[in-house]
């Protein structure tokens, strides 16, 4: 993968946001997360599937998520992720910052229209 530019690095936060949001609905394994994000964004947001794991590790290191090996419905061993209490607080903050971002984008669009 291409090396991310610095501006986009901050925006990696939006991937974090999507992960936090999805995990807030239910604990999930990595593959399930990628499927869910793609499905919710109607294919518009194509996530390189492997790139979700660095984000998960990052979130785990911050203490926002927890991991646990569980058995799936198909009796397979898989690593599940779920939100911690700190993660829920951080999720609230992330949503607020996202709203700021969206209104900034709206301003851009309004200026053009």
């Amino acid at each position, binding site marked *: 993968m291409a090396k991310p530019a610095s501006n986009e690095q901050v*925006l990696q936060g939006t*991937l974090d946001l999507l992960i936090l949001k999805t995990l807030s609905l239910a604990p999930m394994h990595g*593959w399930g997360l990628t499927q869910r994000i793609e499905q919710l964004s109607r294919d518009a*947001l194509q996530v390189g*599937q492997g790139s*979700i*794991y660095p984000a998960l590790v990052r979130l785990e290191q911050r203490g926002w998520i927890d991991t646990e090996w569980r058995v799936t419905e198909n009796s397979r*061993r898989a690593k599940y992720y779920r939100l911690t209490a700190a993660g829920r607080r951080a999720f609230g903050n992330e949503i607020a910052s996202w709203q700021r971002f969206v209104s900034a984008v709206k*301003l851009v669009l309004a200026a053009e229209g």
Partner: protein
Amino acid sequence: MLSHIRAALTRIGEVFRSRAHAAREQEEEFRFHVEMETGENIRRGMSRPEARRAALIRFGGQQRFHEETQEARGVVLVDNLARDLRFALRRIRRAPGFAAGVIATLGVGIGVAVGIGTIVYGVLLRDLPYPKSDQLVRVGFHTDGIPGQGELHSPPTFYHLAMSGSSFIELGSYSDDDNAFSITDGDAPEHVSIARVTPNVLTLLGVRPLLGQLFEPRDTLQSSGGGSRAVLISEALWRRRYGADPAIIGRRVAINHGDRIIIGVLPRTFDFPSASTSVWYPQSTPLFGRPSIIGRYISVIGRLRDGIDISTAEARLNALVPSLAARFPSITPEILKQSAARVSVASLKSVTVAPVRPELVLLGILVAVVLLIATTNVVNLFLLRTERASQEIAIALSLGAPRVAIARRFVVEGIVLGLASSIIALPAAALAVSTKFGFSEREIPRLHEVTFTGGTVALLIACAAVIGAGVGLVALTRTAGTGLFDRIRASHATPSRAWRRAQNGLVALQVAIALALLVAAGLLGKSFWNLRNVDLGFDPANTMAAHVSLPWGYGTYEQTTAFHETVMDRLAALPGVTDVAVVMHPPLTPGNEGQVDADDDGRPSVTTMSNTASPNYFRVMRIPLLEGRSFQPGDERGIPGVVVSERLAMSVFGTIHAVGRTLREPSREGSRERLFAVVGVVGDVHGGRIEDGYTPMMYLPLLRGGGPLPEEGAGDEPRDVQYVIRGRPLPAASTLQRIVREVDPRVPATDIRTLGSIVDDATVRVRLTMLLIGVAAAAALLLGVIGVYSVVSYAAAGRVREFGIRLALGAAPRRVGGLVLVDALRLVAVGSAAGLVMALSATRFLRSLLYEVTPTSLTEFALATAVLVMATLSAAVLPARRAARTDPAQMLRED
């Protein structure tokens, strides 16, 4: 925090790359992920290995999956392509106006480009339809010291060169100037175009007969009976006249009442010497002709030996020229030297298309320009749209979507739009190729070879897809350099500089092209106006002409004049017809060239056209009689009386008072000297193209008493003439044909047209080129105006805050509007300057089409620039007014 994340990423990156640091757990997690994705892919219908490869690839570009990636790429591409297509279609549906604009612009641009490109390629570039056609050459014999002889050979001199030369596999000769032939048996006589060819012309071109056989060498031997009676006919004639009769071989046919036998049918694809040739005669063996430097009448083609190039062949033939003097007593070294005799060798293809090359090259450039403008506008549309979509892209990028995936989406969208445009482009191209823009075989050689094929369709679609993809890529490069933060920061400022520069550049280019085309259109328009307002020297209104050629049965002047007089009387009796005359070459058609001088002084001869006309010809054509009289009975006896044009009188006698003087046609290589008595002087007319100016003309009387007609090719045979009729209303063509047929059922009247249409034909080149360039110029101007408008109004929208503040600080609204106009002015000024440079360097190529206007005519340049500046600046008026009306209070509220 940034450094924090970067550190974390680096650590994880190491985990990713190094197996030593990779936790067992993580490997298992990855494996699980891939297996789940594989299962999902199998449910979508992939085979197990495919599904696994696809899953590995979607997981990410890790080194150890690399080899399998290569194999699986096809499968994944299909999967991704479907996804990208869905995405592209969704985007297109969201902006139907944008899509329609792109599809229409590209459709017209590509359609016209491929259509014209097909024609230009088919005529100029494609190989001639003969095997190994690059070896085929035309061999010319030039005597630059004697004007008016072209590059024709005389048979013996050709034969001498052909026998001595070693560069050629074959050299053959032909002549195709016989247009006075008709098939005279059956119910309806039919005018046919014949060519005489030596047998090896057919074999060296590699033609195979559709039926029967080709000529044999013995067919060329002359006998007392007048040579072989064998002829070949064209497939077209065979189908049209003989209903594709399979038993045609051996059939007898009367051509000009000579008895001929059809020995073969040549296929439709064979179009030598011209596509209209329908009967081939064997050309008699060259040994029997008169060796001559003037009076040459055969053309020569040949096939080069392997490994011999054109310049070698030419040098070898030229080395042989002096030996002509040794071989033929009638050719002296002095004559060779005086006439500057030399031989030229040129590729048959280049010779065939030489007359139209400048126009077609121009057409090709025009096509490129139209396509460039269309593409430029589409790129502009895309850029505008990309600017709006760039936030979306930045988000996708930030979510870790591979750049390649995003690039692919742009390219796929471009391709989809490009392909959609071929829905318009295909019919447009097909129309262009099938109508050929109204050009005919007569104006452009090889035109009949141009067809709309599957290859053209494939080329068009490929072209549309590539242009679409290219446009998508250009739009993408716009997004590649900048990140989202720039854009958020930029929300209150002007759009990024690089983008504006690119867009300004594109619009300036459009303005430049528009100006160059306007100048060209102006120059051609002026030429056309000049041509149409030239004093033609005759009055084409209410006149018509018809071609009548009498068969060989008319052996004497008495017989031919009797025929013409009967027909003229009957035509004159028709209601509405006021006058009928006979002439060999009506105005604007070239006549026979010859040399004359004054008998009584030593001045050198001048070149003149000679023509033959009935006494009332000048009255019918309204050619003014300046001095003396027209012909009267008796003029044909003794020293024939002739009427000369003003220009001829001036150049021979230095005065128009030439009545009573004697003209002399000097003797040349055995032909007798001839004398003529000038009985009248008439006004000048054009003998060929109007552009070439008036032609000196000598008219001989068409009312000779007894005596046989001269030999074929010696000129002055009134067998092959044009009737010119003045009247109101003019008779119908069918009436004219009926009358001629009633006088002699074997004689066809052909080529019936008004003299107005002859005048139209004489200006057709300039008219068509003017039309094409005019249309291109109008399109370029319109696109330029739209371009200026969009760029200026976009830039103005970006500066709305600035305008608001200026107004709030007390600036006059007019000054604010002026700021916008200055923007536009800068754009137009740069574009115009570039356009003038472009026009100055390009209009030179129009020179051959210009008449009495120079390629750098100040008036046309100034006029075109004025039109362009007015039109494009008017495009800025609306945005300027909008800027002036900015409401500062509202602006500040929005902030």
